[in-house]
């Protein structure tokens, strides 16, 4: 279902992999013709933008440091609305995986988390193998825990944004990510 999957041994190597993929991708093509009110930083900086809003503090700082050192990537986690033209990569830790359909379950209650998976060209999802369930039905209790929160926004993500609305020909990236990369963190870690 249009996702690339890699196995990594721990979170640190997952982040390294994300960094490597971000460097290798073509630069983001802005979706705004003119930079809206001149605030879209994309047009000013010639850096790739990576958003990682749901990493914890320690991991974010560590990743930020490597990004800066690379001189190619700027890491952000806030104010994603300021990037309407799009960003290069959204990196998110996801809550669960569903084996039957290859689906990711992501608590998207935070606006920044949500936007990082919608405005990016590449969505990199980091999933611990231990969090993989057989079917959606087999984890209905866990899903219920997620959705019962009064301002819950829970996303099932299976592949990239896709359409077949013109002549039933599959095309990716009609609104959201052009591609999805899943990094599976080995259970032993």
């Amino acid at each position, binding site marked *: 279902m249009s996702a690339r999957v890699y196995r990594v041994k721990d979170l640190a190597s997952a982040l390294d992999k994300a960094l490597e993929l971000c460097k290798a991708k073509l630069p983001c093509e802005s979706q705004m*013709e003119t930079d809206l009110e001149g605030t879209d930083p994309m047009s000013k900086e010639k850096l790739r933008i990576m958003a990682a809003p749901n990493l914890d503090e320690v991991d974010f700082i560590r990743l930020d440091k490597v990004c800066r050192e690379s001189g190619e990537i700027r890491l952000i986690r806030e104010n994603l609305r300021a990037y309407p033209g799009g960003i290069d990569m959204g990196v998110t830790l996801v809550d669960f995986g569903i084996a039957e359909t290859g689906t990711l379950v992501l608590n998207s209650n935070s606006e920044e988390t949500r936007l990082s998976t919608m405005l990016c060209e590449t969505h990199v999802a980091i999933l611990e193998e231990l969090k993989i369930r057989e079917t959606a039905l087999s984890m209905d209790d866990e899903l219920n825990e997620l959705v019962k929160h009064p301002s819950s926004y829970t996303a099932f993500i299976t592949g990239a944004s896709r359409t077949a609305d013109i002549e039933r020909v599959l095309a990716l990236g009609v609104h959201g990510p052009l591609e999805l990369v899943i990094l599976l963190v080995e259970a032993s870690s």
Partner: protein
Amino acid sequence: MKKDKVKKDKEESLKEYKDRLDTALGNTFLRTAMDNFAVAYRTSRKNAFAGMDVDAMIQEVAEIKAHAIKNNEALLEEFTRKAKANGIHVHLAETAEDANRIIGDIAQKSGSKYIVKSKSMTAEEIHLNPWLENLGLEVTETDLGEWIVQLRHEGPSHMVMPAIHLSRFQVADLFTDVTGTAQDAEIERLVKVARRQLRKKYIEADMGITGANYAVAGTGTIGIATNEGNARLCTTLPRIHVALIGIDKLLPTIKEALSINRVLPKNATGQAITSYVTWITGPSECKPAKGGKREMHIVFLDNGRKKIAADPVFAQVLQCVRCGACANVCPVYRMVGGHQLGYVYIGAIGLITTYFFHGRENARNLVQNCTNCGACKTVCAGGIELPKLIKEIHARIQDEEGHPLKSLLLGKVLKNRKLFHTLLRTAKLAQKPLIHKKEGGGTPYLRHLPMIFSKEHNFRVLPAIAKIPFRDRFEQMNQVHKNQALKNPSHKIALFSGCVQDFVYPEQLEAAMKSFAKANVSVSFPMGQSCCGLPAQMMGEKEAARDVALQNLAAFENEEVDYIVTLCASCGSHLKNSLPDLVREYAPEKAAQFAKNIIPFSQFMNKVVGVKSIPGKGRKTAFHSPCHLCRGLGVKQAPKDLINKSGNLYVKTLEEETCCGFGGSFSANFPAVSQEILTKKLADVEASGADLLVTECPGCVMQLRGGALKQGRDIQVIHLSELF
């Protein structure tokens, strides 16, 4: 207001409707697109459900929905309570206009100007966009297909693929107009144009409108399935979110929603799951909004649903999950596309719901455009008895508006067996000068069509009425039969002939009589039997259908037989499946016993008699599986076994189970569509290399043989009984 809608609101006549069908039939792109889709869908659906018990899954969905509909009021109450506690404004709209007004008010009170929408059939149902546009609001559809049809001022032509009727070239021309820059007809690039154009719309939007696939009462959560992810943006960037949801979408817990979600995408497009399923419980974080939370509204729409829920016959309509599969497999949809086979809702379900949501004036013509092939019923994710309900709507409209003379006369004639049979015998005399020399299957043909048929019916030659009907030949034949001595018959059967075999193709029954004699089967033929009643039901003459049902029950009442064998699949399916329903309040037990005894010829000979193989010519033989045999009676293997047992070679064809386009009164009402379905069928048989086409229904023989002769195809068409 949408252009085509304005036109349709002016009460389209049947003639105007047929003209529209003709235009669609002449649209080469549409025809190819529909055809490719029909063929591709079968495989993708099969693959998506591979290794799963699809019937059990559908059964589960049907039960979940049926149960939820029964408890709708309680679910609505529970959802409303939970959602309010979560901070959602919940509204209940009784009518389409109420819903439009509520949503318009929300937009105006919040000072909204720009609205982005994700795909919602419910919004199409209430014509929401024109209402909002009339208030000076700018509404942009964000689902690619919906955006395309919006820009073209059309409605969707499929529930999940709104622009399936359009080519990449038409989209390129449209996008050239929209962007003011020439756009190539390259699909990937066109999709990128939409990405760019619509991104701006999301950013500037004040309000996002979505539908929902599920409304989970237990937590007050809505679930939205999309592939494009547009609903996610519509519910994230704007500061207001309005979800318009039919009350039929309510479910108790997420578990039921997940069970349906396991079937819906597989059935819709053959996908295991959509790219996105979004579960929203209450106003989520929205940084620019007041208090950092989005203003969220849910508008529950009744618009006649409560009334449907309370209707014992039609309540099951609400089991629909809007997958669109009933259109995907419909032979008529395949020929004419969704704009011609629906008003807002498309396909078989559209033929039914149009009556409830958009009035009988918009349903009147549509509801007749059904061959009654039953393909929709076999794939319906909600387990709805679609063909039956289409007939019910047809009957209901005629009861309300008065029956057309043609159908009234048919009903009157059919109710009186003696009058009916006298008419047929008289017609035989009247047609004499028209009889063609013997041709094809040995049946005389009409050289010219009688005056009552118009030119457009001339796509197949029609057989003449036989000199001596079967009922007048039976005794003599049976005497010979009996003389061969039947002291200890292997089986005792009664024969139900149906009108077509009795009066047009008696030779098919005679062939069967020989087979019965060989197998030592004793046969009776109750003379009081009449038309099975299906033609009356197809014409919306329910009362006449019931009358003949009762006559047939009486005719067979005293027969002490093991089986009632019929060589007509349509009669068989009607007698087994519909008759008990028709006489439920008159003779339920008698009908149940009668229905139980009904067995099609193929199954009787193959399974009960266990006929032995005979040497034959080894001709390559295709089988046309009558709709009422493979779907109506669930018989698929027996006829193929018999073909091989007859010393011929059964050859598989791609469209074996696709309707031939006859459909009784359907081919009389819509000859142009019927002709196209027939041509497709014959071409498929020809491509298989078979020169013999066997079927098990005299109606199909009439259509296929008449078409093969007319089109000069080298295919001989015979009834299965004639193989032996």
